[in-house]
């Protein structure tokens, strides 16, 4: 009916250079950091910042797949913990073990994602409950595996991805491997979401599952694969985080909410239908920039939680307000 008028109304809007506010926010935050700490403008300053944010950024990109498909994935943080603890238990200080441990962990991640997806799609359990249950169970598995206290440490070959810096790079001096990982996986996630048929189906499923089903989208397999992708990125993020920060039993806790916060800052619509990988990665960068800024201001760690909570509510309230104003 009004389809055609709708597109003709929308077209001039698309033509305008409309910048996602997250990029403006990110630039403002980075400028604020540079003003407070000029060393940040040096390659070592911003490269360390990018290295710190790499795990969260990759994780957020994967979490966005689930968010765009209309769900939540709260199990990613515990999957990161499981990755780090499991790897350290399996490695038993053997540097050659890395080559089979990482694929094995990716396999475990795929199974976890598959279970999440199957439970949500076939048993119709709301994803929030399903993945929270998975989070409890995975934390229990991590504890069981390590017997309560992690033993062993991660070999250097494993920590390569999170810790190693390539030095003597022209122009920028150092280039952490984590940043290369971020770039590579960021591009892959961007390509999957915005340049493939699968990405379009994902948006369709999140926007209106009934309509998508009637249009011939295999709704269940699309949703299941979104959970698998999210879990795989959680394993990758775990590998990078473990490499950077070492082994501890609660290393991944809180990351699930940070990933959702990053996606929300990047303008992703909760309960599905809209979201952009680059904007989500920018959201992760902005979140870490806010944390860096809080550190520079000398505010204690718990304040992070308060700020994160306020941002989460504020960003969603802002998005709702904007949608209502536009009338969609």
């Amino acid at each position: 009916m009004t389809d055609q008028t709708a597109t003709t109304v929308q077209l001039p809007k698309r033509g305008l250079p409309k910048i996602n506010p997250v990029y403006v926010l990110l630039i403002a935050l980075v400028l604020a950091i540079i003003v407070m700490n000029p060393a940040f403008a040096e390659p070592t300053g911003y490269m360390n910042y990018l290295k710190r944010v790499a795990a969260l950024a990759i994780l957020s990109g994967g979490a966005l797949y689930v968010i765009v498909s209309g769900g939540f994935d709260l199990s990613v943080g515990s999957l990161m913990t499981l990755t780090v603890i499991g790897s350290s238990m399996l490695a038993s200080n053997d540097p050659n073990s890395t080559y089979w441990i990482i694929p094995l962990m990716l396999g475990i991640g795929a199974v976890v994602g598959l279970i999440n997806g199957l439970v949500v799609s076939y048993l119709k359990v709301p994803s929030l409950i399903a993945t929270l249950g998975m989070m409890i169970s995975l934390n229990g598995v991590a504890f069981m595996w390590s017997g309560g206290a992690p033993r062993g440490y991660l070999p250097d070959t494993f920590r390569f991805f999170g810790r190693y810096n390539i030095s003597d790079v022209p122009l920028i001096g150092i280039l952490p491997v984590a940043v290369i990982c971020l770039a590579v996986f960021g591009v892959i996630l961007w390509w999957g979401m915005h340049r493939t048929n699968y990405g379009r189906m994902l948006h369709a499923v999140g926007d209106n599952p009934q309509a998508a089903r009637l249009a011939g989208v295999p709704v269940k397999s699309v949703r299941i694969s979104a959970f698998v992708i999210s879990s795989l990125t959680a394993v990758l993020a775990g590998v990078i985080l473990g490499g950077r920060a070492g082994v501890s039993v609660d290393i991944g806790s809180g990351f699930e909410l940070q990933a959702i916060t990053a996606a929300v800052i990047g303008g992703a619509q909760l309960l599905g239908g809209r979201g952009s990988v680059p904007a989500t990665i920018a959201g992760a960068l902005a979140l870490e920039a806010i944390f860096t800024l809080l550190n520079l201001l000398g505010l204690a760690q718990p304040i992070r939680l308060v700020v994160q909570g306020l941002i989460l509510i504020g960003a969603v309230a802002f998005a709702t307000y904007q949608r209502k104003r536009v009338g969609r």
Partner: protein
Amino acid sequence: MTDTTLAAPKRRFRFDRNASTILLLAAILIYVVLVVALGQTRFLTLENLIAILTRSITLGITAIGQTFAILVASIDLSVASVISAAAVVTSVVMNGNPAMMLPAIAAVLVMGAVIGLINGLVIARLEVNPLIATLGMSLIIQGILSYFYNNFAGNVPAEFQVFAYGSIGVVPFSLIFMFALAGLAWFLLRFTRFGSDIYSVGGNQDAARLAGIKTTRVIVGAHILCSLCAAIAGIYLASRLRSGAPWIGAEGVYDLESIAVVVIGGTVLAGGRGGIWGTMAGVIIFSLIDSIFNVAGVDAFVKQVLRGIIIVAAVAFYAARSQRPVA
């Protein structure tokens, strides 16, 4: 309309209504069979039954509040943080001084009401997704709490521990209190205007608004009740542990467990259908499961894994038959 088309939905409806009873009976049966099989009949006494129920009073009180939030088609993930905050405030304000008991309780209840008010307003007025609104609130409370306290703080006077440890005969005060609270909640839902408004708003918010119900007030009211119950649960926990620490709520996973028992009790996550007694059945089922694990001697970490699986399975038990895709 033939008889068969009428009969089919009717039977399914009855199954839905009685599912929590079926689950409860199944849990009791498993427990009894296990205890008899292991020859540990000392677990079958009245004292032990009361002990089983008393173990889940915090969960029960929280779940009564959560029922209101879920009935109104919302959800509250901030209850665990509210419990921690309430327990810490209780023990810090009392600080061993019996004279400070009433001020402490009053302060905690006001805090709970304010948190619920903010939750409700953010959800109803700003139209923020309730999951995000209450998760955000949870982060804020947890942040503020751990900024000021990082260990057990303050202590509760002996007079106040009566709330958790005192009893009439073999029945503890706290158990009576929980069932009294449940009765009050039942009365509120069954016989008051506010109660019926909750079901209307939960069933269909737009229809309720068009019918002249002030939906914002109902949602805010439900959230105030939810946070108040969580605050009361925190007070009880402080009385039982003799002191409050900023992690006790999160450690008990009261946010997820309270949602799980409400759903097991037959209250629909989409809102508008369900009730308090189902929730109480859910609470008893959960404590029975816990006791089954204890009797069977399941390892603590395995217990955690199983608990996650059981929560999901219990929700699936209800949800799998629904035709709608879920979020």
